[in-house]
């Protein structure tokens, strides 16, 4: 059954597959009389609706070539339109609106000027909205005032430590003696855990300024203690030398150096 259906199946080919020597295209499987396959979904099978019935004409093959014939007859039924009144051939006269129209050139510049002015106002309103919103994120004046700390260096004698508070963190200021400077510079710093020379860590050799927060877990080291004469962190036993470099214990880095400047004229140190 399946094979039979396959044989009877209608095939549509491209119209010019091959041509005879006479110029007639060969379309051997083209069958206009084929019926639609029986399909339970569509009820009874009838003549195909997509091709015209044979009695209207059609293409036939003759010895001279393809012949197309069409049998026409005058349709018997009369076409009647939906509305039967006679069409008025003379179109109703369109009123003349030119009296009401304005000259497009007359206030064109003014119109664009108004549009542009509104644009200017909107743009500046949008800009100030954005910038005012961003200013709410900026640091306020009291925070900025606390961000810098001035220290009077004349009050710190040689060989003494001073701890001040800066941005909520302790800052160590050490007025180093000449011997301490020489000690800090003579050691072989390249072998340290965080190799840094003393020259990199200070701006003036007399003054060592650094953040008093242990780089291990954030305790505050004790001054003038430890095996290297510098700082010692009591929490986990990190030792820092007189330049604040980690020498022993779990601390991975040297003590941090904040941004600072000297004010030589007034003998002051500005941190921040």
């Amino acid at each position: 059954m399946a094979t039979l259906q396959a044989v009877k199946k209608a095939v549509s080919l491209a119209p010019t597959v091959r041509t005879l020597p006479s110029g007639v295209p060969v379309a051997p499987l083209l069958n206009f009389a084929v019926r639609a396959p029986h399909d339970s979904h569509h009820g009874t099978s009838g003549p195909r609706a997509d091709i015209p019935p044979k009695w209207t004409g059609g293409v036939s093959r003759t010895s001279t070539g393809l012949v197309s014939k069409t049998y026409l007859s005058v349709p018997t039924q009369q076409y009647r339109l939906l509305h039967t009144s006679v069409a008025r051939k003379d179109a109703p006269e369109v009123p003349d609106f030119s009296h009401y129209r304005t000259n497009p050139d007359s206030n064109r510049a003014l119109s664009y000027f108004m549009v542009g002015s509104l644009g200017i106002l909107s743009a500046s309103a949008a800009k100030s909205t954005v910038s005012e919103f961003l200013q709410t994120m900026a640091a306020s004046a009291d925070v900025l005032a606390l961000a810098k700390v001035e220290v009077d260096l004349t009050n710190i004698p040689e060989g003494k430590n001073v701890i001040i508070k800066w941005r909520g963190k302790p800052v160590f200021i050490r007025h180093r003696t000449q011997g301490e400077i020489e000690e800090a510079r003579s050691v072989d710093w390249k072998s340290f855990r965080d190799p840094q020379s003393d020259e990199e860590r200070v701006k003036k050799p007399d003054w060592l300024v650094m953040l008093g927060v242990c780089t291990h877990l954030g305790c505050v080291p004790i001054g003038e203690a430890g095996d290297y004469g510098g700082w010692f962190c009591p929490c986990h036993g990190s030792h820092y030398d007189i330049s604040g470099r980690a020498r022993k214990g779990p601390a991975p880095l040297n003590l941090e150096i904040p941004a600072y400047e000297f004010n030589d004229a007034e003998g002051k140190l500005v941190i921040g």
Partner: protein
Amino acid sequence: MALANTVYNTFFKRNSVFVTTIFASAFTFGIGFDIAVTKFYDRWNQGKQWKDIRDKYVQEE
């Protein structure tokens, strides 16, 4: 009429020029508006602000 045409041909004819003019004018307008409001505010509150009465309290060394 000639002025209107000149303005139209200078600023409004090309949209790129139009939009650029709007943004540039918005920038200038913003600055000018800020200055004007500040001036008005200072005049309205004359003698009440710290910068006006600072001389009474702070002696420069």
